């Protein structure tokens, strides 16, 4: 009897499919290797990490870039958690979807889905129009942190909700049965059990935000910053000055991705070495963050098995 079940396309197809995946893999691999080779000279040069940008490519470094990235990300994480976790808790624990409030809840839910799909540069325009010009925050670290926090918000809300949803109903019923209020339950049970999932979401969101360039260019981030924000610490008691902290918030800044963009767009080839080196460092940062999130997620899943 002739075998009709496995014709030639049937044998070929999985090979073609695997090849397609290999193309993607080699694309990624080439990207990483290419950056590494192009930037090697600067990657291994310690002064690159502690120098300010310069007109001379061999003296230029990423000091103001990574300090700016650190400060902006700290702000972004703070704001996005401040709004994202409560919003996620509300939608998962409190929303009843009944009556007029229920309508608002549905709008909040749809809205967060929509926010996730808005092009990042639109958030830059929002920040330019509202934070920079209408609130007069200027082109500052504060504005940048707020802008990136809006980008992170949908990811945080979605991950918070998913983490909370995994907690079984019994836990809540048990808490209510011994007289706990809803807030008691959230504080003592829901939040602790979902913290791992929330943190995973935070790391993923932060790994996206750390590489964002367009919204920060839109708010007018400068590309050439040859100074650091003032230190808020003082020599006298209480060793920290509120005025100085405000100065840090309002300080102009640059971040790693903007520094890279600036170097890429220069005609001199020597600057491209700097761009490749900084790009490689940024890429490694995002790889690490994603790896941590991946590991964390696996661990959390094993920790609580209901």
């Amino acid at each position, binding site marked *: 009897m002739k075998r009709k079940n496995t*014709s030639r*396309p049937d044998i070929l*197809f*999985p090979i073609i*499919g*695997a090849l*397609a*995946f290999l*193309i*993607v893999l080699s*694309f*990624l691999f080439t990207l990483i290797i*290419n*950056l590494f080779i192009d930037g090697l000279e600067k990657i291994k040069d310690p002064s690159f990490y502690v120098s300010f940008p310069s007109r001379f490519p061999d003296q230029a470094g990423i000091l103001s870039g990574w300090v700016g990235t650190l400060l902006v990300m700290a702000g972004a994480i703070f704001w996005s958690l*401040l709004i994202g*976790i*409560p*919003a996620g*808790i*509300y*939608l998962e*624990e409190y929303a009843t979807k009944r009556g007029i409030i229920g309508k*608002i*809840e549905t709008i*909040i839910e749809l*809205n967060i*889905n*929509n*926010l996730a*799909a808005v*092009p*990042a*540069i*639109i*958030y830059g*325009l*929002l920040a330019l*129009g*509202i934070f920079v010009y209408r609130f007069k925050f200027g082109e500052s670290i504060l504005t940048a942190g707020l802008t990136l926090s809006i980008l992170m918000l949908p990811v945080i*809300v979605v991950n918070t909700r998913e983490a909370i949803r995994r907690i079984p109903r019994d836990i809540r019923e048990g808490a209510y049965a011994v007289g706990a*209020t*809803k807030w008691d339950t*959230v504080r003592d049970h829901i939040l602790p059990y979902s913290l791992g999932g929330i943190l995973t979401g935070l790391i*993923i969101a932060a790994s996206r935000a750390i590489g964002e*360039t*367009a919204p920060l*260019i*839109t708010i007018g981030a400068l*590309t050439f910053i040859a100074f650091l924000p003032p230190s808020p610490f003082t020599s006298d008691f209480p060793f920290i000055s509120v005025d100085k902290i405000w100065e840090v918030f309002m300080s102009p800044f640059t971040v790693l*991705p903007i520094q*890279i*963009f600036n170097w*890429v767009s220069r005609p001199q080839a020597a600057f*491209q070495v700097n*761009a*490749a080196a900084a*790009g490689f460092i940024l*890429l490694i940062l995002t790889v690490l963050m*994603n790896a941590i999130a*991946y590991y964390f997620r696996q661990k959390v899943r094993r920790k609580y098995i209901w």
Partner: protein
Amino acid sequence: MFSSVAHKKILDKLMLAVFFTAGLITIFITVGIVYVLLSDSIEFFKEVSIKEFLTEKEWTPVFATKKFGIWPLVAGTFLIAGIAMLVSIPLGLLIAIYLSEYASVKVKEIAKPIIEFLEAIPTVVFGYFTLLFVTPILQKIVPNLEGFNSLAPGIVLGFMILPYTASMAEDAMKGVPQRIREASYALGATKLRTALTIVLPAAVSGIVAGFILGASRAIGETMVVAIAAGMYPNLTLDPREPVQTMTGYIVQVALGDLPFGSIEYLSIFAVGLALFLIAFIFNSIALWLRSRIREVY
């Protein structure tokens, strides 16, 4: 005892209010976007008529005779997104079918995070790679390819949106119940035939939703095109020439010093509004398609 209970109840109500407020703030973000885009666009359209914006074929805001016809920017945007889709759809579909119907669990567990990692790579890094690696290679293959062009960014964007075109398509195909495949095998269909004539059509709305979200992503992408496509508004379909996209224009203007209220400042909000509307339409179609998935079975 009683006061403690009353205290608890007040705290409970208070926290409800706090959580609800956080939810409301997310709505204000969208309200803020719409408000800023509309109010500054209205100012823009006081100086440039909507008719000129939609019918003029030139975009020359930095010239002495300023012309504000959005079509060159829209054409540049869609040309690059189109090239990205030409790369991403076949590649994504092949990978999706392979991962969903053929690959072992182990391969899948490694492959999915790798594909999804493409979304986490900073786009400015893709931009560097496009300008200084992909374009020079393409110049050896494609005659008359300029240093800035829409071909190279289009191809790179095609890879960048694979998390949508491959990964989401795979999710959709995975969602097709196993019994439908078994029924097909029972009738004597091969694996490939089952994949192409049973699973693919059953998952089609999810797959197309992924394609549309991917296209929307390519349309809104900024850094790759700002770095590698050139900054030249060009009403062309020739992928070898430099073009400017809507996002590229916003970056170009933002890099200069913007006086608040100037025509250049206002023009990026009008372009932003057009971009927002396009993205909104694409996302709404994708959401509608995804909501249909549940109705099939």
